[in-house]
């Protein structure tokens, strides 16, 4: 579980995670990256006193809810260009269903409950991005 303020290579992170969990039956990963759509830059701001404890709490919930061999959560902060990876979540488990559910759950909660604020620069102007309705819709699936 890490926050990083420099670009990362998802394939290299996954190679390390796979190597650390060679005994797991299956590994599910999600990698989210900056979509182009006209924005020049995306900035991810966070509030450090809440962000890391929040991600730790989420990891603990995942570990308690599913039988996992390992869980990786990696989130970028700072300024990102289109195509750069923002987030990488990976779950290793003996059973495929558990790995899928844990990765899906972790992403739903990272998206809507973690302490990140995004703004994007279009034509030289910064605009804050409001949460989307379907971020909340995802959470309702887990109640």
């Amino acid at each position: 579980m890490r926050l990083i303020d420099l670009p990362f290579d998802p394939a290299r992170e996954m190679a390390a995670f796979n190597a650390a969990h060679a005994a797991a039956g299956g590994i599910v990963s999600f990698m989210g990256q900056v979509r182009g759509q006209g924005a020049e830059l995306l900035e991810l701001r966070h509030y450090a006193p809440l962000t890391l404890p929040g991600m730790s709490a989420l990891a603990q919930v995942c570990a308690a809810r599913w039988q996992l061999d390992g869980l990786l959560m990696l989130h970028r902060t700072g300024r990102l260009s289109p195509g750069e990876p923002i987030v990488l979540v990976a779950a290793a488990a003996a059973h495929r269903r558990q790995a899928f559910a844990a990765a899906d759950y972790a992403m739903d909660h990272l998206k809507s409950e973690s302490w990140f604020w995004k703004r994007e620069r279009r034509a030289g102007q910064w605009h804050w991005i409001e949460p989307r309705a379907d971020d909340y819709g995802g959470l309702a699936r887990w109640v």
Partner: protein
Amino acid sequence: MTARLIFLGRLEDAAGGAERDVTPGPLEAVLAALAPDLAVALLGERVRMALNGVLIAERGGIVLREGDELAFLPPVSGG
């Protein structure tokens, strides 16, 4: 003798900066000393607060002491 307010997300634009030092005291007094537009934005229904890194469940009765950090958190836009 100062306490610090932290403005996240779009509240940073409303405040004209990411943080501001204020005179300690009851939250009502601290807010009253700000521009009215900013005070209204900070008290928005969906804005949460964290005092020294701890989320606050109730807004009533907050008194800022010297060195306290009070963060205003609008809805997040996630990863």
